């Protein structure tokens, strides 16, 4: 039995068969056929196109109900596939030059992709990626390989991949995927966030996973301890089956806390919020007091063009309806860094996390920013909406963003649109430079929410996408606890609401310490609600205060974790 280690980003246990997922890699050489076989090879090409068309139609049909935005991408692929210029180009190469179909397809699509890439308009240049995608589909079919995506799995599997792209996870069959293992990605990567929200156990950063494991291998994925057991012995399997039962039981117990009123042992009430990233109604809405983080990137990333004001307005209204009267904090577009848009060519940056991203990017692309603010404000007529800006570093940033809100309000008023004139506008605190002047920031905003993931990244100077330095990513370090304590007390003093919507709020250990530091608003994924409510119910206010102040004075994160963990376990018995 061999053991591989990784970073458990979504808790759980899975036993089952490996399914290696790799995107098709085209391997085409210049090659020709002998005269007389023109019709035969042209037919081969036409058949491949017909198969590709069918594949795309199946994807579009299966996706259009659940996520029409994502379906549009594949509709655009169909248009490219059926383009008559493509057909003519390939036909000419086959009949005039006797080029093998795969060579002809590769040449024609690559030519066209290069042509589009030269377009001055970055939106058009970005479409070249779609051409290459369609080319790969046709080449794969010509090669006789089956479509490989995670939508049509025939049995329950544990997916093993180098990395999963948002488009892979978008089509993933959630009922068949029991676990996910990837070679790269950290706790806050796209795959991590998604598997957590789907409650699929996952282990990321497993070096060479794709080479070491084979399709059909039996493995145990222990996403509690952070390991994969290859070819496990019978006793080990039995042991893990028992662990799995235990895990499910524990999950059920915490789920009993889901609909309890959030109270600590001494009776103080706090609020639980939900983090969401799409418009799907989910159970989590029933158990919370507010939506502390509504990420809007899905609208932009799932689309093949800049989402219109109307589309955004409809989506925002939908989330307000999901929230059933509770306030919704909408975070304006947060791209750059690890998230980019297919239709908006952004210059490559050496340090994207320190680059032109989030609010900075929005202030640079005023049309895009205003469109989103218009949609958010118009939606505010249909529920309690709050607007929040990410990646704020200075008071200048706040003032610049507030000025745009004021201008947009004026426009809407002149046009006669209804909106909440007293809408609350606030900021994410995730850049240390704004964290250390939280008292000044509090004067400029209606509220703030701490993004502990990015705050850790920037405070500790750790790229959170880099798996080789995860040990330096210390989100509950004494440094973090000191800056957090200050931020909470500055906002509490100013009488302005402060919440945490980062991973730390949904973590047992984190929640106890944050409560002790003065936090009363915790926003998290639905999967963590029961656990946090249960853990906090075990402590009195005084106890959390004492724990927090001790933790702030410890020397290392490891000490903090060990100490708070022991305090929780003591009360769990």
């Amino acid at each position: 039995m061999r053991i591989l280690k990784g970073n458990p980003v979504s808790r759980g246990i899975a036993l089952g068969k490996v399914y290696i997922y790799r995107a098709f890699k085209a391997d085409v050489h210049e090659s020709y056929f002998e005269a007389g076989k023109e019709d035969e090879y042209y037919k081969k090409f036409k058949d491949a196109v017909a198969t590709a068309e069918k594949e795309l139609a199946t994807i579009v049909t299966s996706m259009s109900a659940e996520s029409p935005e994502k379906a549009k991408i594949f509709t655009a692929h169909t248009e490219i596939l059926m383009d008559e210029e493509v057909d003519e180009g390939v036909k000419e190469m086959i009949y005039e030059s006797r080029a093998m179909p795969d060579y002809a397809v590769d040449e024609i699509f690559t030519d066209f992709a290069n042509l589009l890439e030269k377009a001055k308009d970055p939106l058009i240049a970005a479409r070249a990626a779609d051409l290459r995608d369609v080319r790969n589909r046709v080449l794969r079919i010509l090669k006789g390989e089956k479509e490989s995506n995670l939508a049509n799995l025939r049995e329950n599997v544990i997916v093993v991949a180098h990395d999963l792209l948002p488009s892979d996870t978008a089509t993933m069959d959630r009922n068949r995927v029991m676990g996910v293992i990837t070679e790269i990605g950290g706790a806050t990567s796209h795959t991590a966030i998604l598997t957590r929200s789907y409650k699929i156990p996952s282990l990321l950063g497993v070096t060479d996973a794709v080479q070491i494991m084979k399709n059909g291998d039996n493995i145990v994925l222990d996403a509690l301890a952070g390991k994969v057991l290859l070819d496990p012995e019978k006793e080990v399997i039995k042991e893990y089956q028992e662990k799995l039962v235990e895990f499910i039981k524990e999950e059920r117990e915490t789920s009993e806390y889901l609909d309890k009123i959030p109270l600590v042992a001494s009776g103080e009430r706090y609020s639980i919020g939900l983090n969401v990233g799409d418009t799907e109604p989910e159970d989590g809405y029933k158990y919370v007091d507010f939506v502390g983080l509504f990420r809007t990137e899905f609208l932009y990333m799932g689309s093949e063009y800049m989402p219109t004001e109307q589309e955004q307005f409809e989506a925002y209204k939908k989330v307000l309806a999901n929230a059933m009267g509770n306030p919704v904090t909408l975070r304006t577009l947060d791209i750059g860094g690890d998230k980019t848009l297919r239709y908006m060519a952004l210059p490559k940056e050496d340090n994207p996390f320190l680059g032109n991203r989030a609010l900075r990017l929005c202030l640079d692309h005023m049309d895009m920013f205003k469109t989103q603010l218009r949609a958010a404000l118009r939606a505010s007529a249909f529920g309690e909406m709050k607007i929040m800006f990410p990646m704020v570093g200075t008071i200048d940033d706040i003032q610049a963003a507030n000025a745009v809100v004021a201008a947009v309000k004026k426009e809407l008023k002149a046009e006669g649109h209804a909106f909440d004139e007293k809408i609350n506008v606030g900021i994410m605190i995730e850049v240390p430079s704004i964290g250390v002047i939280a008292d000044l920031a509090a004067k400029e905003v209606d509220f703030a929410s701490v993004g502990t993931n990015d705050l850790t990244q920037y405070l500790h100077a750790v790229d959170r996408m880099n798996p080789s330095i995860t040990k330096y990513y210390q989100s509950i370090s004494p440094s973090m606890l000191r800056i957090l304590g200050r931020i909470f007390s500055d906002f509490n003093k100013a009488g302005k609401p402060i919440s945490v919507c980062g991973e730390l709020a949904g973590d047992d250990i984190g929640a106890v310490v944050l409560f002790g530091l003065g936090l009363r608003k915790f926003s998290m994924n639905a999967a963590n609600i029961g656990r946090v409510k249960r853990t906090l119910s075990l402590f009195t206010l005084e106890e959390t205060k004492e724990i927090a102040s001790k933790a702030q004075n410890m020397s290392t994160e490891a000490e903090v974790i060990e100490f708070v963990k022991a305090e929780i376990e003591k009360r769990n018995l």
Partner: protein
Amino acid sequence: MYSKNTELKNVSGLHARPASEFVSMAKTFESKVTVRRLDDEAAQPANAKSIIKILAQGLSVGTPIEIVADGPDEQEAVEKLFELVESKFGED
């Protein structure tokens, strides 16, 4: 042969949805239909029934274009496509 000049009036120009609407409509006609941008001497007429060729023209808002059709339904083809451009593809 029948032709008409116009200028793109919708903000997002001729890509994404507007481009595919334009191409879908062009495909409904039997005539050969092309689009040529008028602000570039070197520009070649592009096949209006090819999404790739239309995209490659990089037609943004304000670009003057010539729509040309040649065939049995040439006049109708040009007029219909002209109207579509004039309607700003339903954008505000």
